[in-house]
């Protein structure tokens, strides 16, 4: 936490090294979060790339206080939710996108390389509704509180806890035998 505060201060002062350190520290976490939320490596890579580029341009706006990891995770979650919402708004029920299946093979220019466990987890998460997926992932991987997640989802804490319970229960059934 202290290290993060120093990093933010140095980043705000224009330090390339600080930005490099932030990138190296959180890159994998954010990629893993994005993969778990989207079950699509290419989309996850795009989102995390955009988040870091946006972050690099935002030195003037970033506050020196606050949890950097939570901030970046929230950025990723918000970006992905906006993409989901835009997809729903512009797409008919997958008629025009019949081949959109999560890509799980590493292409020649793939940035993120998933372990088998992450692939299994991501595939299971893709089978539960998005709001549940988001709560479970942000709580278990993002170490966010239900209150923080409720604010992000614009829902009550009770609703979020309900989503968590349903999500965990479904995941348990899906992952049974794979653990």
């Amino acid at each position, binding site marked *: 936490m202290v290290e993060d505060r120093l990093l933010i201060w140095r980043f705000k002062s224009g330090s390339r090294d600080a930005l490099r350190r932030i990138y190296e520290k959180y890159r994998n976490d954010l990629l893993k979060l994005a993969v778990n939320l989207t079950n699509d490596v290419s989309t996850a890579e795009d989102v995390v790339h955009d988040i870091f580029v946006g972050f690099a341009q935002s030195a003037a706006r970033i506050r020196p206080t606050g949890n950097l990891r939570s901030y970046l995770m929230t950025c990723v979650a918000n970006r992905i939710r906006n993409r989901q919402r835009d997809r729903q708004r512009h797409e008919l029920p997958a008629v025009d996108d019949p081949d959109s299946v999560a890509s799980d093979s590493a292409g020649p220019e793939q940035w993120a390389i998933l372990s088998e466990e992450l692939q299994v987890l991501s595939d299971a998460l893709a089978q539960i509704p*998005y709001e549940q997926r988001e709560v479970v992932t942000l709580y278990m991987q993002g170490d966010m509180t239900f209150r923080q997640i409720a604010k992000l989802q614009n829902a009550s804490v009770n609703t979020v806890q309900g989503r968590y319970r349903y999500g965990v229960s479904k995941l348990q059934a899906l992952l049974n035998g794979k653990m």
Partner: protein
Amino acid sequence: MNVKPANHIKTFFKNAAIRTDPKMDEAVLNEVLMAQEQAKEKESAIVQPTIWRTIMKSPITKLAAAAIIIAILIGVHYLGRSIDGASVAWAEVVEQISNHTKYKCRQRVVREQGPQVPTMQVYHLNLSQRRQEVEDGSIHIIDMRGTDAITVELYPAQMKATVTKLIGFGPRKDPHIIEMVKRFEQESTERLGTKKQNGKILHGFRHQPNEYNDFTVWVDPDTKLPVEIELKHTQAGQTIFLDEFEFDFELDPSAFSTDIPDGYEVKTIIQDYRPVESKEITAEDIRSGLNHTAYTIEKLPWIEKLIIVQTVDPLSRIGKVYMTGILSDEGNNIIIDQSNTHSDYKEALMKWILKEQLVMETPSGAKLYTHPRGSDYARIYLESFAKANPEFFDIKNLSEERFTRMIVMSDGTIISLSANKQMSNKKLQELVESLIEIKAN
């Protein structure tokens, strides 16, 4: 020891590792660092004039100021920006574009994934009429001058045509890319410097109105008109390239006619863009509104309430859907959705449905399939019904159990069923078997 499910899942999250390709890491990091540099330059450019004014106020520092200005110009040149005296102001570009409402260009779309879009020559007669000559030989004519817009697709090699009538869509002016470019403000348009192309120096401008669109425009400094425009749809993974511009082209007005030449086999599609009034209707209204078999539900002992509404399609926001809402004695809200489909759409929909999981086949031959976004779909339709008829369903009661099934009836009619809560297979089958064709009175 009985370990709670959550702990198992947490362990899974912990063990699920990711690593990255070092070369891609470096590439992404370089882009991130470059973004930081560009952000710093922008800030510095804003600050710079203040420093100049301060320096120039003092007669003692004028000489030093001259040296600074020269140094800055050299620095700017080093960064690739132009110090060409014949620079173009964006406002001049806008003025020139505004003087030419008629233009043609080549349009190419490059997609990172998925099917590619063919290249076409696009002739814009005005904001409501255009002609597109596609590289596959087909020709499209679009006319949005009237209340009902028309698009015509001609396939000369096959002597076939598809006419789409968009009822209530017009009159409309198409905000095509040149129109969007005209609206860029001087202050928000970034200079990119120059590039040489076909022996000519072009001046570049860039504008990002939002996170979804990134425009780059290359302009001829003599005419002040665009030579190339690139529009990157950053979230959609596609870029549109416009080039080979010709302003004030010569083409016979009949090239923009929507009349079909003699001898063509014509298919007509109607899309209704007129506003849809959300209201309660009868089964007979569904029958007269649909272009295929319409279904209603026979009363079942566990159905407490049945309401039929028409409303705008909640997915496309175009055209009507007819929703039959059922409230069960267990407090479940179920929606059966029916809407018009033209043959092409139905064919594509069937291909998509058959990739899903078949979960039930009823004795009468109806097949029920899963929906890949069944929970989201159910939420959208429940919300839509609640808006049309708030007494039927309160969105606050939206359940995490909600689901959707695509139903292919024995006669090939496709309808969807969404429910707020889980249903037993017995009740699901009963409900589907109770669907009967609505016949004319």
